[in-house]
C-alpha cells in the first residue's frame, strides 16, 4: 500500500489512527494495534513476503538479547553476535536484491527455479536493524521490549523509504506518556505535511514523469533524440525524482506527526546545494549519514589521506549504486558520483578559500547551476534502462548526434512545466523552512539561527484558517489526480 492511494488515505490511515487513540489508555494493546496495522500495511500487496519481515524481527531481536548483557561493556561474544547480525541482515537483503535483478527467479538445480519477489521495505528494514544493533552495541540505547522494538522497526510511516530513525530518537518520544494521547497541536502540522507531500508527489512529480518517460523510452527504443528532447528528458527526470522523494519525506513526517511522533528531516532542498558534497548532505539525509557512518568512516574515509578518501568515496558510491539494483546503470551511476565527489574534494583541497559562507551571489548561483547540471547528467544513467540508452541520451544532450531529424520523434516536451518546477526548486522555501515556527515551538534546538530568523516571514506556516484552506486546496488538487499517480520511486529500492 502506498501513501498515495485511496485505500491508505481514506481507509487505512483514518481507521488506524482512530482505533489507536480509542484504545491508547491501555498501552500494550495500543502498541500491538500499531504493530499489527503496520504488518497489514506492508502485506497489502503481497501477504507472503511479510514472513520475511517477521523472521528478520525475530532473528535480530534474538541477537539484540545476546548482545546486551547486564554489564555496560559489550562482551566478545556480544561483538560476535553484532557482526553475525549485520552479516545476516546484509545477506538477506543481497539475496532478495539479486533475485529481483534476475526477474524474481533463482535457479535451483538446473531446471527448476524458485520465484521470489522483493519484499516491500526490506532495504530500509535492513538498514534500520543494523542501526539498531550498532546503537545497542555502542550503549546508546537500552534493549526495548519486543513489542516496542517491533513498533520501532516497522511503524508504517517511516520504513518504506526512510527516514532511518535512531532507536534513542524513537524511544525517547515513545517513553513520553504524551505519545498515547492525541497531540492536537501536532495534527495541523501533520495534515499540512501530508497535503504538501501528496501535492508534490501527485501533482508535480507524476505529471512531469510522462515527459521523462517519453524521452527515455524513445531513446531506449532506438530513436535519435534532438538536443532539446534529450535535455527535456533529463531535466524532467531530475525534477520527477526530486519531488517524488521530497513528497514522500513530507508525507512520512506528516503521518508520523498525526501519531505524535517526530521523524528526522530527510530532505533539505538538495538542488540548492552548491557542490556535490553538499548535495549528499541534503538528499536522503539519513541514508547518506548511514553510508557515512557504516561504510565511509569504518573504511578510513575520514583520515587525512586524499588517496584513502578517494578510495572510500568510490567504494561508498559504488555500493550505493549497487544497492539500487545489480544493473550496470546503477553501478555506473554510483561510480560516476564517486568520481565527481573525488574531483569536488580535490578542488576543495586545492582552493579551500573558495568555500566560504559569504560568497558573492553570482558565484553561489553559478556553483548551484553547475552542481545541478552535473546531477542531471548523472540522473540520465540512473534512469536509463541500459548503458546504450544513457550514452545515446548524453550524446544528444551534447549535440553530438549526426543523424538527427527534428519533428519525427513525437517526444513530449513540457518546457513551461520545467520552468515552473525550476522556480519552485530554487526560489520557493522548502518544507523545513515552511514549518520552522512549528518545529521550533516544540523543540527549541530544532532549527538553526538562519532558520529561526525567517520564522516571522509571511510564507512561514501558521496554524490558522487561511493556511488550512490553502492546504485543503492543494490536497484536493492532488486527490483529483490520484488515479494517475505512480508508486514512489524509492519504494522499489
Amino acid at each position, binding site marked *: 500500500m502506498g501513501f498515495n492511494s485511496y485505500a491508505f488515505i481514506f481507509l487505512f490511515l483514518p481507521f488506524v489512527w482512530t482505533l489507536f487513540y480509542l484504545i491508547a489508555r491501555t498501552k500494550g494493546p495500543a502498541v500491538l494495534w500499531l504493530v499489527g496495522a503496520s504488518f497489514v500495511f506492508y502485506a497489502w500487496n503481497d501477504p507472503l513476503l511479510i514472513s520475511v519481515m517477521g523472521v528478520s524481527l525475530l532473528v535480530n531481536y534474538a541477537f539484540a538479547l545476546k548482545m546486551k548483557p547486564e554489564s555496560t561493556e559489550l562482551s566478545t561474544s556480544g561483538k560476535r553476535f553484532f557482526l553475525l547480525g549485520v552479516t545476516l541482515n546484509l545477506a538477506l537483503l543481497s539475496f532478495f536484491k539479486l533475485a529481483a535483478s534476475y526477474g524474481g527467479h533463482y535457479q535451483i538445480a538446473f531446471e527448476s527455479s524458485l520465484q521470489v519477489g522483493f519484499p516491500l521495505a526490506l532495504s530500509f528494514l535492513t538498514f534500520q536493524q543494523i542501526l539498531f544493533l550498532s546503537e545497542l552495541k555502542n550503549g546508546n540505547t537500552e534493549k526495548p521490549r519486543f513489542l516496542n522494538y517491533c513498533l520501532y522497526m516497522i511503524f508504517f510511516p517511516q520504513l518504506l523509504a526512510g527516514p532511518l530513525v535512531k532507536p534513542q530518537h524513537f524511544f525517547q518520544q515513545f517513553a513520553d506518556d504524551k505519545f498515547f494521547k492525541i497531540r492536537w*497541536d501536532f495534527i495541523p502540522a501533520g495534515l499540512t505535511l501530508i497535503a504538501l507531500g501528496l501535492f508534490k508527489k501527485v501533482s508535480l512529480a507524476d505529471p512531469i514523469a510522462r515527459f521523462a518517460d517519453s524521452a527515455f523510452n524513445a531513446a531506449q527504443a532506438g530513436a535519435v533524440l534532438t538536443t532539446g528532447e534529450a535535455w527535456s528528458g533529463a531535466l524532467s527526470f531530475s525534477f520527477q525524482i526530486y519531488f517524488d522523494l521530497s513528497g514522500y519525506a513530507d508525507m512520512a513526517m506528516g503521518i508520523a506527526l498525526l501519531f505524535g511522533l517526530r521523524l528526522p528531516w530527510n530532505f533539505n532542498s538538495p538542488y540548492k546545494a552548491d557542490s556535490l558534497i553538499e548535495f549528499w548532505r541534503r538528499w536522503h539525509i539519513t541514508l547518506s549519514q548511514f553510508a557515512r557512518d557504516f561504510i565511509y568512516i569504518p573504511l578510513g574515509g575520514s583520515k587525512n589521506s586524499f588517496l584513502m578518501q578517494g578510495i572510500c568515496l568510490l567504494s561508498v558510491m559504488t555500493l550505493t549504486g549497487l544497492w539500487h539494483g545489480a544493473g550496470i546503470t546503477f553501478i555506473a551511476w554510483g561510480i560516476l558520483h564517486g568520481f565527481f565527489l573525488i574531483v569536488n574534494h580535490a578542488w576543495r583541497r586545492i582552493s579551500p578559500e573558495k568555500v566560504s559562507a559569504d560568497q558573492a551571489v553570482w558565484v553561489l548561483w553559478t556553483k548551484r547551476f553547475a552542481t545541478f547540471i552535473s546531477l542531471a547528467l548523472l540522473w540520465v544513467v540512473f534512469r536509463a534502462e541500459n548503458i546504450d540508452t544513457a550514452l545515446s541520451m548524453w550524446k544528444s544532450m551534447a549535440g553530438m548526434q549526426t543523424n538527427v531529424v527534428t519533428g*519525427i520523434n513525437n517526444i513530449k516536451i513540457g518546457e513551461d512545466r520545467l520552468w515552473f518546477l525550476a522556480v519552485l526548486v530554487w526560489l520557493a522555501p522548502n518544507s523545513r523552512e515552511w514549518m520552522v515556527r512549528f518545529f521550533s515551538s516544540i523543540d527549541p534546538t530544532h532549527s538553526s539561527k538562519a532558520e529561526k530568523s525567517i520564522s516571522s516571514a509571511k510564507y512561514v506556516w501558521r496554524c490558522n484558517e487561511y493556511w488550512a484552506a490553502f*492546504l*485543503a*486546496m492543494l490536497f484536493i488538487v492532488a486527490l483529483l*489526480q490520484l*488515479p494517475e499517480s505512480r508508486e514512489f520511486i524509492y519504494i522499489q529500492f
Partner: protein
Amino acid sequence: MKDATKFIFVFTLCVLQVLIVIGALNWFVDPYSIHRSPPENPRQPVWMSKQLRIAKALYVRKLAPKGIVLGASTAQLAIDPSHPGWDNEIQPRYNLALPGANMYENLRYYQHARANAPLQKVLLGLDFVAFNHFTPLSDDFKEGLIASDKEGNIKSSFLMKTAMPLLSLNAVTASQKKFFARRKETHWANGLEIPEETGKRDWREAMLGSADGYVTRLLLPPPSHRFCLEDSSTPGSALGRLETLLRTAATDGTDIRLFIQPSHAFLMEALQATGYWDDYEIWERKLVALIEKINTEVLPEKKILLWDFSGYNTFTAEALAKDSTTAMKWYWDTGHYKKDLGDRVQDRIFGLNPPDREGSEDFGVLIDANNIDSHLKSIAEKRSAYLETQREDIQELKTRISNSTKNIPSYDCARLRESRF
C-alpha cells in the same frame, strides 16, 4: 488547542465541501454515462469522452456485455455489435475496440470484459500494425481500471472505479467537455463510433494522405519508427498476447471469431512501397500457425476460424475518383472502412446472405494451414491486375511515401533479437 481545532475544522470542511461539489457535478453530468441505466436501444446516439480507454472501461463495468467486438479504430468505426448475425440471446453486446489499440490493450480489455461478465461471443479484428513490437501503449491506457490482473484473475478495484468517474481530474475535464459539447453525439450506445461529417472532405487527400500517415504513424510509429514482428514464444510479443487471449477464450468456451481487416488496396501498396509486404505475408502465416496450434491443443472439435478480408477484391480495390469531391463508397480512408462494408464482413463471418445487401464471393477467405500458400499467391496475382488499372494513383502514393520516409533509418530486427541474449 483552539487554533488547532479551527485549523482541522476548516481543512476538513474545505476538503469535504469541494469534493462533494465536484462529485455531485460529475455525477450529474455523468461524463462516462455510468450513473444512469444504459440506454435500452443500442443504436441510441450518445456522447463519449475522448478519453475512450477510460470511458469504455468504465462503461463495460456498468453494461457487463456478454458479446464484444475488439480491435482498433477500424473495428470501432465499422463493426456493429447490433448486426443480425449475432445470436439474439447474447445480450448486451458492445464494441470495445479502441483507436490505436495494440494486442496488449486488446488482451487487457478482453480480460476486463471477461472479469465483468462471462463472455459468450467475441469478434476480434486484426490489424497488422497492432503486432509491431514497437507500437507504443496509448497514454490514456490505465492498468488500474482493468478489472483483472495480467494473469486474468479478477481483482478488486472498488475505490478506483468509484473515485475515477466522480473525483478525478479526468472526470472533471470530461464533464466540462460533455457540458460544452452541445449534445453532439460521438458513438452509438453499443460502442460503435458515429462517423464524422464528411461534407467538405477532400477524398483524394483522405485516401492518399492517410496511406502516407499510415506508414509514418502506425506502421513505423514514433519515436523509434521501426517495425518488427516477434514470434508468439517471445515474452511480451503481440502474437504471445493473442495466444493468451485465444487460449483463455477457448478454455472458457467462448465463441471467438477472428478476421483480418479489409484495408483498402492502397494500404497493401504502402506495405509494398516500404518493403514490408514480406512481413505481412509472414504475419498471416504466423496467425494461421498459431490458430492451428490452439485448435489442435485446446479445441480439437470446435475450431477457431480466421477470415482474411484484405488483399485486392471487389471492395478493397475500390477505385479513387480523379476529382476530390466524389466520395468513396466503402472507405473513409485507406485503413478505415464504412459500416456498410463492416456489415458485409459480418455477413461473411456469420454466414448471412441478406437480400438487401449485395455481397461478393471474392470478399473474405477462410484461411488455414491448407490454403495459406494458395491464398497469398492469389493475392499476388490479383495485385498484378490491380496495378494495371491504378498505375497513376499508385505512383503518386509511392512518391508521397518515399518523401515522408526518406529520413527514417532502416532497422534490422535481428538486432532486437540479439539484444536479448
